[in-house]
Structures are given as structure tokens and as C-alpha cells.
């Protein structure tokens, strides 16, 4: 992301809306500036700020007058008064930042927008996680911390070594040069993203082992980790297999995403040949 210094009036609104805190007012040029190393190309500034199209010279003059009179300039906090944001043309490997950070950009590898896949959200029609299985989503960098691929690499190696299977239709898996060892492409190691998810599946009896492994590896990472654990309920809608394991490990289960089983396969065989991407959100 680029902020046009000819347009920027240094109102400072964008410094607060950047999820990575990568925008600051440069004291030399007195304009908002993006720290390209920390920017994850999430476009929260460009997409989230409302845009006015005021004359920059006029706004700067007004701001100077108000400042001289010690009057508080109190603009709306979600507005860029001069529409100063201009997206860069992103090349490989920097384009990976946007793919994992801007939720409206679909991953070509998965056909879904965002950082993950359908998980158990469509389990009633996909059968992705079967009875006796557990699907893990190990998410790095969330909330609001960000993660470098070099950190994700450490966890991917550990998981591969433990012999778990990576979800094929996952954006991180698609960036592995060797899925059997969990090795990611070397040229993305210097890229930072808002968050990324390793998705693995294993049998229920390995739940504790995998969680303890995640806990061990996450100590080596310079970020936060959030774990999601997906599983099937029984015919009466109860789930008394995985929850007790998680509680025994010390987790207080507060929130969950519940697939209520109303989905049906409605596509015909012909439809399946002409698939369209389905952006996911939740």
C-alpha cells in the first residue's frame, strides 16, 4: 500500500486503523507513511476508510490555522479526507501478504476467500471430518499480531514429523514445496501476513498429543496461536468424546461454531464439473 504524499494531509486517522500499526506520520516529510516491512497488504486502510476528495492544500491550511489557535481538529475517525491511499502492484512473493491478509482476495489454491477453508462448516455435505476424527485449525498471528512464514514453517515441520495429514485445499498447504515434510517454499520466508492457518486432521485418540505438541512449538514462535478443534456429533447431536479431552487439558470451552446439519448435496454431476469459487467468511 502506498500513501500519496501529494494528497496526504497528515490527519493521522489511518495510523489507528492499520491492524499492524504499520502507518505513522513521518516527522521529516510530515505525511503518513507505510512501513513496508510491517505492512501485510490487508487493505483495511484502503477498503475500510471512507474517502472524501477534498483539496489537500486547503485541508493542510485549515489544519495549520486550527493548530495555531490550539483548537482541536475533530474529524470523523474513519475517513481519509483526500483519498490518499493508492494500492501498489504486488509481485511475487509480496503478493502472498495480500492473499493471506485481505479477506476479499480469493486464494486460487482453494477457491475460497480468506485464510482458511470450509472446515466443519460444510461437514454435513463434505464429510470432511468423520466420526472418530478431529480436524485442527492452528491459526498464527491472530488477533492483530501478524506472523512471518518463517514461524509457520516451524509448526509445519513439527506437524509433518508427527505424521499428521495436512488439508490439501488449504492456502498454507498449497505453498508447501514438500507436503510430506511440511516444507514451505523458501522465497516466502521473509513475508509477513495478518494470519495463516495450518489445517490438519487426525484420529480422536491423538488429540491430546497434537495439542501438547502445538503448545511446545508455539513457545518458539514470535506470535500468538489460536486453535480450533472440529469434530462430529453423535446421532442425537451430543459430543462427549473430544470436549472431555480438551477440558482435561485445562481448556474452558466458551465458544464454538456449530454446524446444525441442514445441508444437502444439491449439485448434479454436471454442476460439479463447472465449479465456481465460494468465498468463505466465518
Amino acid at each position, binding site marked *: 500500500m502506498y500513501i500519496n504524499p501529494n494528497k496526504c494531509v497528515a490527519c493521522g486517522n489511518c*495510523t489507528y486503523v492499520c*491492524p499492524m500499526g504499520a502507518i505513522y506520520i513521518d516527522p521529516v516529510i510530515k505525511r503518513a507513511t507505510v512501513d513496508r516491512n510491517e505492512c501485510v497488504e490487508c487493505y483495511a486502510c484502503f477498503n475500510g476508510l471512507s474517502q472524501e476528495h*477534498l483539496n489537500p492544500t486547503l485541508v493542510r491550511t485549515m489544519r495549520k490555522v486550527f493548530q495555531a489557535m490550539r483548537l482541536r481538529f475533530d474529524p470523523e475517525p474513519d475517513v481519509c479526507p483526500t483519498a490518499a491511499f493508492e494500492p501498489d502492484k504486488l509481485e511475487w512473493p509480496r503478493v502472498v501478504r495480500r492473499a493471506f491478509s485481505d479477506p476479499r482476495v480469493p486464494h486460487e489454491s482453494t477457491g475460497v476467500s480468506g485464510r482458511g477453508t470450509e472446515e466443519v462448516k460444510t461437514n454435513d455435505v*463434505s464429510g470432511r471430518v468423520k466420526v472418530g476424527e478431529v480436524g485442527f485449525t492452528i491459526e498464527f498471528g491472530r488477533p492483530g499480531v501478524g506472523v512471518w512464514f518463517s514461524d509457520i514453517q516451524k509448526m509445519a515441520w513439527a506437524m509433518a514429523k508427527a505424521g499428521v495429514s495436512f488439508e490439501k485445499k488449504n492456502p498454507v498447504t498449497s505453498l508447501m514445496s514438500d507436503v510430506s515434510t511440511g516444507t514451505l517454499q523458501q522465497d516466502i520466508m521473509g513475508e509477513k501476513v495478518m494470519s495463516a492457518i495450518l489445517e490438519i486432521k487426525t484420529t480422536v485418540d491423538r488429540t491430546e498429543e497434537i495439542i501438547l505438541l502445538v503448545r511446545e512449538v508455539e513457545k518458539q514462535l514470535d506470535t500468538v496461536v489460536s486453535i480450533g478443534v472440529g469434530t462430529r456429533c453423535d446421532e442425537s447431536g451430543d459430543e462427549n468424546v473430544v470436549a472431555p479431552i480438551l477440558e482435561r487439558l485445562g481448556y474452558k470451552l466458551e*465458544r464454538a*461454531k456449530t454446524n*446444525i446439519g441442514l*445441508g444437502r448435496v444439491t449439485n448434479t454431476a454436471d454442476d460439479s464439473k463447472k465449479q*465456481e469459487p465460494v468465498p468463505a467468511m*466465518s
Partner: protein
Amino acid sequence: MTNTLHRYGSAESFYDDYVIFAIPSRGKNDKGSVPKLRQFLEMALPFKPVNMGDALNGGALRPSRTMSPTSHWNRDMTPNFQGVIDGLTAPTTVAAVFDDRVAAEDFVKAVKAADLGLCINISTSIDGAEQCCHTACQPRHSVGYSLGFEGHTEKLPNTQVLTLSTMCGHGMISSNLAKKMIDWVKEGRRTPEQAATYMARFCSCGVYNPARAKRILEDSRHKTE
């Protein structure tokens, strides 16, 4: 992704937070799903959602690309639900957000009766979702538990900020903006409703809960952590 799963808060604190979403699965039930997704959103309207949206176009409160300077004094804070429904043109995930348990339960019952064939999920407390299923006489199929945040949690902001910013799991609501809004409400520079609406405009899929945000901002007026 896991956008609504890892909202920060205790199970009790989700009493006013029910995200119900419909998702077509690629290659399974996505063909011809747009009218059904639209029907899902239209069916939500009588139950008074506090937000709704789709993953392609955003929520019911959106930023403006051509804002007029005069609108600083009369900005529209009304969610545009019909705009969300009319703007839906391609298969995607759609969501309706409720701040009332009974409304959420009744909506789930209505969705079940409509038999849309889409995959329907509820994101809230575990008990809250179970209650919705119980009311609709619909056994849960699968469940995805949140285990919360681990690792270097010292990098995270305080709990009030976290509660606000994690309502957008895509991370589009920055913790700095959430902190600023808490401060502005405390200073009396903006009302909780105004502050909640500013943040809602950054949510790119409409799952942000402005009613819950308003409550948190009101609480933080009296005690900032």
C-alpha cells in the same frame, strides 16, 4: 476461515451475540445457491438482526468511496440490510447477526422449515447454539471448538479492546482503533453507538455485532481496563 470462532469473551458474555450463517459448499450445493442465500437473508429480517452481510461485499454498514464533507454532521448510521440482499450476486457465505437469543432460536426454526439445503452454522457460546438446535428439534451435526489464544499472549491488548477487535476475525478492526473508540466514548467525544458504527464499517463480511460493541463501549465508559 475461523472468522467468528475466536471472539474473545466468556460463554456468558455471548448472550447478545448469535452469528448464524449459510455457506454453500464448493461442488456440493453451490450451484444455483444465490436465490437461496438471498432467501436466507430475507428470512432474517423479521427477526431484527443487528447486522448481516456477505463475504464478497461486506456488511450492512459500509464505508463510502465518495463521502461529502457535510456528512460529518449527519452521517447515516442505519444498517442497509436491503442493500446487502440486493448486492448478493454470486455464491458466497452470508450471515445474519442477532443480539437476542429468542430471535436467533426462532430464525433457526424458520431456516429449518424453509429447507434451503445450504449448510447452516451457528457461532456463539456452546450452550447458546445447543439451545437453538434444541428449540428447532435439530441435532447438531458437527462442532468446532475455540481453544482461545496461546503463545506470546503478552502481545495482545487488554480485554476490552480484544473483545471489540476480535468481532472481526479477519482482523480488519485494529486494536488501536478499538482503543481509540473506547477513549473517545470515555471522553464524551462520541456516543457508544457512533463509535460502534465506525468500527462496523471496517468489517468486510458483516459478522461484526454493533449491538454488543455498543454495550462493551458503554461498560468501558465507567471502567477502562
